């Protein structure tokens, strides 16, 4: 019951925040889709968007997190991101990994920049582009799974294609956690891939609703944790998750949801298998 009140309290804050957002005047663009994987698009110059994301992951218990993401287009090729987590339901040993690759890890406040380093537009509605993602994070909690959490740096790159019908992006990234109080979370190396399709049935013109579906995949290699300057050899992890997601866009609103299931899991932490990872995102472009 206490958890329920905790969740409703956070929703209340969100409801207060959303009308405030209406007061800010900017343009909007972006929102191409995948929930969990890297993607290339950046906002246009001076454009602002906001996502409220509810994420859950289940091991033995479910962890719930609300993440609020602000995106601002500094230029048409540089986007600044600010991602703030709010833990709705904490679990003892949350999974070490980037639950959504475009934002911080579990419990991390992250500031990042997207740098679109290459773009070409072969035809109407088509774009082929490559983007770098560089970021740094600060933990919002002192300990995670019994380990003192330090700040981190993160770098990723992604290349892909988007059109009115098909989408495909492939990317890779690395997140390094710094040591704090002789503890250090394992570093995360990951690759992501996503393909998307917008069937003819959904190819109505703007401003009619625009839907697309994706198949997303994330493989993560998580390094060993260090506790009291001693590397815990049995805490490394390799996992591949695969699952569908869907994105609906209507004017300046976006709604997406997705779920990933593990395909393969090699770990010594057999009591902490991640059973699924799910997200629900509401986006608004100002």
């Amino acid at each position, binding site marked *: 019951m206490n958890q329920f009140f905790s969740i409703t309290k956070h929703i209340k804050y969100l409801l207060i925040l959303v009308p405030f957002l209406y007061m800010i005047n900017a*343009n*909007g*663009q*972006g*929102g*191409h*889709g995948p929930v969990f994987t890297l993607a290339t*698009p*950046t*906002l*246009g*110059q*001076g*454009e602002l*968007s906001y996502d409220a994301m509810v994420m859950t992951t289940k091991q033995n218990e479910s962890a719930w997190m609300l993440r609020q993401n602000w995106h601002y*287009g500094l*230029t*048409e*090729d540089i986007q600044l991101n600010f991602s703030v987590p709010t833990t709705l339901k904490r679990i003892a040993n949350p999974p070490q990994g980037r639950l959504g690759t475009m934002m911080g890890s579990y419990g991390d406040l992250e500031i990042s920049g997207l740098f679109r380093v290459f*773009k070409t*537009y*072969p*035809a*109407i*509605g*088509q*774009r082929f582009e490559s983007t770098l993602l560089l970021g740094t994070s600060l933990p919002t909690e002192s300990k995670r799974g019994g380990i003192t959490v330090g700040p981190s740096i993160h770098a990723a790159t992604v290349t892909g294609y*988007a*059109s*009115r019908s098909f989408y495909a992006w492939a990317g890779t990234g690395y997140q390094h956690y710094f040591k704090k109080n002789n503890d250090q979370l394992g570093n995360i190396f990951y690759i992501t891939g996503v393909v998307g399709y917008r069937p003819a049935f959904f*190819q109505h*013109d*703007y*401003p009619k*609703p*625009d839907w697309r579906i994706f198949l997303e995949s994330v493989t993560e290699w998580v390094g060993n944790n260090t506790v009291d300057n001693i590397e815990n050899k049995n805490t490394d992890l390799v996992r591949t998750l695969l699952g569908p997601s869907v994105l609906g*866009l*209507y*004017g*300046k609103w*976006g709604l997406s949801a997705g779920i990933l299931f593990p395909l393969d899991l090699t770990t010594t932490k057999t009591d902490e298998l991640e059973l699924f990872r799910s997200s629900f995102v509401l986006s608004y*472009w100002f």
Partner: protein
Amino acid sequence: MKTQFLLIIISFLLFPVTNASAQITEVKQTVFGMDCSPCAHGLEKRIKKMDGVKSASVSLNDGQLTASFTDDNTLTLKEIRSAIKNSGFDPKSATIKVRGKLFKQDNSTFILKTNSGEEFFLVDEGKNHKLMNFKNNETILVSGKTEISEEVGIKLILIDINKSPK
């Protein structure tokens, strides 16, 4: 000296320096790179915010921005293309309707110059628009398809040409 000063004042009053006549009146601009609803929303909003825009709409399926402009606008095609680039897209050719003064450099080079100073090199591919029939410095209303290059500037392949009332 006093008389000359008065004449200058009177001439300013009689012939005010204004941009009262429209420059570009309509644009159908092909835009590459838009693939999503927020793309269209962002571009449409950006264009609508520009001074002198009467209406603007975006078609994702056609990759086209359609805009019309007020009679007193001072916008240039360059500014519209720049706004599209700032949205993160690539403006390609456009079909535009534009009013300006015709300047004949010789019998084969015709330049339309708007009040904003933007120049269009008029190309009469059909040879049936009778550019020669219009006087030098005459205000005309032209519709045509743009071709833009760094070397030449904006070429306007003529579709239609009329004497403008303004």
